[in-house]
């Protein structure tokens, strides 16, 4: 069984910090997704594990063995690249067999592995074609098949779907999820900036942030199951990054800590409550209150908002509204189709759906948040 363990990994290029304080354990057979905005170092982290970037500090273990000084080819990992990285002068079959032949594997074993992978990825009829004769989706399947035949301990995926169109992306995503179930014991580490991919594929999400100028900032913001990150974001960065559209955030102050419905605060002249743990908070403390657009009730309540823009997505619409006396827009998801720009709405922000973040961005634990 294979676990990937990273201890205190850090990387600086010139004077620019790329990664800092990366401590992580990926369990055997786990599907772990690195997600974060551009420049957060997620692809770099994957490349460090692959052995393609070797100048990082810290320790890296694969299957219990330190591999910091092990060449990429001996780490028993296989990588699927964003641009496929197929060898264009070789046929699909030669592409898939290349690493096995380099490793000196017998012809019969190579043929068996090729057959198995080609069947799993529906590539039997393309084996004698060259990559240029394949579509984007087929090329990506070849790239995945090339990884599978190596039977590695760890699969590394570097934004493998970003070059595909929307429908093919869904198809290939399902394919990858199916492969993960089939391949069982191998760990999969997957980099994406697309949170739908992260939410749908991951057993565990690792959310990373760009380090910027803060010398104390750590690369990893939060590690957890997808729904944990959704329901219980660790800080404002996680709250803003996970969820589409992003969470609504309002700056306010704490009015009271121990009311039955939770911590009290004021918005639009009304006393509202957030069902969060009041530990550490004090009355009068400036805080940021958040609520996801899908939890805003835009048909009842004591707050008022005016519709400024509507994005109709088909199954639902995203309402952009403005509450009088409140900075920033309030977004709400609704299935109502009768609303028009300029309409006034009653709005309710349920206490159980609210998040509360302190001045330094840390989230207060939610009391009745649903977690899966």
């Amino acid at each position: 069984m294979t676990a990937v363990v990273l201890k205190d990994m850090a990387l600086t290029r010139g004077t620019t910090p790329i990664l800092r304080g990366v401590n992580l354990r990926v369990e055997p057979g786990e599907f772990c997704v690195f997600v974060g905005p551009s420049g957060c170092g997620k692809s770099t982290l994957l490349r460090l594990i692959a052995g393609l970037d070797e100048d990082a500090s810290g320790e890296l273990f694969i299957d219990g063995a330190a591999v910091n000084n092990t060449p990429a080819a001996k780490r028993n990992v296989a990588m699927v690249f964003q641009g496929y990285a197929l060898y264009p002068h070789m046929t699909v079959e030669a592409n898939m067999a290349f690493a096995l032949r380099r490793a000196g594997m017998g012809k019969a074993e190579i043929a068996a592995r090729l057959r198995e992978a080609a069947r799993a990825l529906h590539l039997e009829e393309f084996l004698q074609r060259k990559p240029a004769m394949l579509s984007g989706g087929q090329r990506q399947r070849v790239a995945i098949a090339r990884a599978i035949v190596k039977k590695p301990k760890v699969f590394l995926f570097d934004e493998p779907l970003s070059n595909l169109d929307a429908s093919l992306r869904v198809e290939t995503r399902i394919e990858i999820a199916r492969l993960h179930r089939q391949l069982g014991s191998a760990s999969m580490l997957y980099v994406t900036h697309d949170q739908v991919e992260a939410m749908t594929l991951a057993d565990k999400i690792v959310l990373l942030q760009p380090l910027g100028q803060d010398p104390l900032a750590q690369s990893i913001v939060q590690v957890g199951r997808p729904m944990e990150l959704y329901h219980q974001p660790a800080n404002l960065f996680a709250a803003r990054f996970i969820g589409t559209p992003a969470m609504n955030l309002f700056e306010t102050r704490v009015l009271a800590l121990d009311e039955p419905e939770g911590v009290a605060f004021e918005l639009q002249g009304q006393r509202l409550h957030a069902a969060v743990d009041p530990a550490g908070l004090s009355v009068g403390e400036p805080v940021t209150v958040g609520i996801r657009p899908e939890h805003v009730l835009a048909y009842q309540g004591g707050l008022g908002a005016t519709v400024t823009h509507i994005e109709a997505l088909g199954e639902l619409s995203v309402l952009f509204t403005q509450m009088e006396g409140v900075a920033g827009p309030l977004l709400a998801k609704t299935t109502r189709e009768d609303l028009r720009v300029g309409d006034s709405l009653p709005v309710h922000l349920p206490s159980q759906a609210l998040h509360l973040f302190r001045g330094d961005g840390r989230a207060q634990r939610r009391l009745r948040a649903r977690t899966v």
Partner: protein
Amino acid sequence: MSRLLTYLLHGFLLGYALLTLTPFVWAVLSSMKSVQEIAVGGRILPLALDFGAYRQILQGDFGRWFFNSLSVALTVTISSVFSNTLAAYALARLRFRGGAALFQTLLIIIMVPSQVTMIPAYLVVARLGLADTHLALILTSLVSISAIFMMRQFFINFRAEVEEAAKLDGCSALTTFVRIVLPMALPALATQAIFIFMGVWNEFMKPLLYISSVDNYLLTQGLNAAAKQYEKSAAWNLIMAGSVVSVLPILLVYLGLNRFFLKLNDQTGGGK
């Protein structure tokens, strides 16, 4: 308007092609005329297809000069493409101490006119006892800095992902270069080969400097010497036959490597 532009452009290209081809066609037609026909003039086409001039030049030293040129050009092309490409790949991809300084030095050297280095190079060659040998021509043409520069740019723009995939597949830097990079660089290699072959084949100054015995002449030298000789007897058909035959290898090399050449131009033109 756009149709008119197309016609104008095609007309211009056609005129340019005719202008370029006319001297060559003239040379081919003249090579098949007799000396008298050329002297009298007034006709474009020869009275009869007479290949006598070709037979005559092939009986003389022309064949030997042709072979000399061919062997020197092929040797230089193969060895120069090899060394330039290796150097370019190292400069583009391998991180080593002094790499940037080395590349800058090459850029400075490229700016030195060949006339400046001609005499020192000759003195070195002469002291090595290589004067009047083809080896002198080959050794002094083994490296082309402009070709290194061109190939380095090609390798810099080469998709690093493919090389990384090879690394993960167990290839060393050299194996990656030979098994993966070179086959993908064929268009660039072909372009380089065409330019180097043409350069050596058409080279006149260098052979003139290094080669002194008639037996070792390259074709350009030989044709020059023959032209002076035949000019006195106004044997323009022989001069033209020699010129036509001298163009053939370049034409063959270009036709053979044309598809790679076009492919590279297509790629650099914003294709895939």
